[in-house]
């Protein structure tokens, strides 16, 4: 994964990681109390590489991680704090295009969209109809 090249004075810790942690804590409280999801757009924040590293280290790694291969990779992983997810969208050449902290039960990008379910429902019927019962029996006996 590639990061922005940084000018010399864009390195070092600025305290931004601590500020983001406070924001995450406030959102997490709302998620726990009212079920209100939120997200923090990391790209819009003037964070240095060290700030990000610090934030990643403090948030840690949770139980779930997923990779979506769609118009470039998307990495989704739950941090050590349940309900706090790190979502990283990349384009080609592993260039980070968008990065967010999602405070939610499950990030939207992981959910199957209703229109896709509808499409899949129709497609599976077509597969069943075109394959016929014999094909399935043959598959079962081979298996």
């Amino acid at each position, binding site marked *: 994964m590639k990061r922005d090249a940084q000018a010399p004075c864009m390195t070092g810790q600025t305290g931004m990681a601590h500020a983001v942690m406070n924001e995450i804590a406030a959102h997490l409280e709302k998620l726990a109390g009212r079920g209100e999801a939120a997200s923090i757009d990391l790209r819009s924040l003037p964070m240095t590489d060290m700030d990000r590293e610090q934030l990643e280290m403090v948030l840690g790694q949770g139980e779930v991680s997923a990779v*979506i291969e769609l118009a470039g990779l998307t990495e989704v992983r739950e941090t050590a704090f349940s309900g706090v997810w790190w979502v990283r969208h990349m384009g080609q050449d592993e260039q980070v295009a968008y990065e967010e902290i999602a405070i939610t039960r499950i990030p939207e990008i992981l959910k199957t969209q209703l229109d896709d379910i509808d499409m899949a429902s129709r497609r599976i019927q077509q597969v069943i109809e075109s394959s016929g019962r014999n094909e399935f029996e043959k598959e079962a006996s081979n298996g």
Partner: protein
Amino acid sequence: MADHQTLGEVLSSRGISRRVFLKYASYTASLMALPPAASTAIAQGLAKARRQSVIWLSFQECTGCTESITRAHSPSLEDLIFDFISLDYHHTLQSVSGHAAEQARKAAMEENAGNYIVVVDGSVPVKDNGIYSTIAGMTNLQMLEETTSNALAVISVGSCAAFGGIPYANPNPTGAVPISEIVTDKPVINIPGCPPIPEAMTGTISYFLSFGAVPELDHLGRPTAFFGETIHDRCYRRPFYERGMFAKSFDDQGARKGWCLYEVGCKGPVTYNACATLKWNAGVSFPIQSGHGCLGCSEPEFWDRGGFYKPISTGIGDATRLIGGAAVAGAAVGATSAAMMRHRKKKAMQEG
């Protein structure tokens, strides 16, 4: 690709799920500083939209704007914009030429009457009946008037189309004018810059496709999502400005240490654009990060503001009025200029 299908149906037929809209929408919402909840609305809007017919006209320009949009930040993601639009006419990118090209423009106008978007880069010469730039035997003025007559909206990309740009610079030998001086009966969105940031172009088009409406604009017709703050507002060198630490030349200790470039002519304090946050060349850098002051290319008449290497406070046309007599004297300058900028911003918002 069948244009009667929605974008969702088109991508489904290629085995691509609607997650791609959500991914693109998250990216677009971030670009446009929209709340995260907006990404779901953008994704739904895009999935239901049909391919948008776009006619791209190039007049007095250098093709830098096209170079910019074809080098967008994250190709596999940004290239989706070319799935979302039907680029029916574009001098540089179309394969046909001559009569066939003009026929394609007319066919797109006819088939999408009242619903197509016209993107224009370049200014239009009007002196001597516009003879200084012609295409297919038509003056730029004739082609613009004909093509926009039945358009839904017009997007002026680049400072030449938005404000006249370099052709408009003194002495303006061709009588160049910006598009907004000619097209007055429909929405005109200005996305200035020399060239504009590619994401500002694709983000604006995506917003239009998703919501079917023009995004919020400032008093110069620019989307506030990209032009709502000055370069200076979001510049990583700003702390040096506030502390009065300035480079005095491009090779002194201050320059080497990355101090503020205000005294060597940076126009960041009076230039509204997103270079400091979106950056250029796949997010690698922007002029100030590379050690050069901002030229102010997304502001009107940037070429005639007295000199790229003169500090704003020494007097550079309009900028002098904007910043007033703020002396280059450390922290006091920061406070004065910041207050005046806030005043200007407030005034601009009231006017807008």
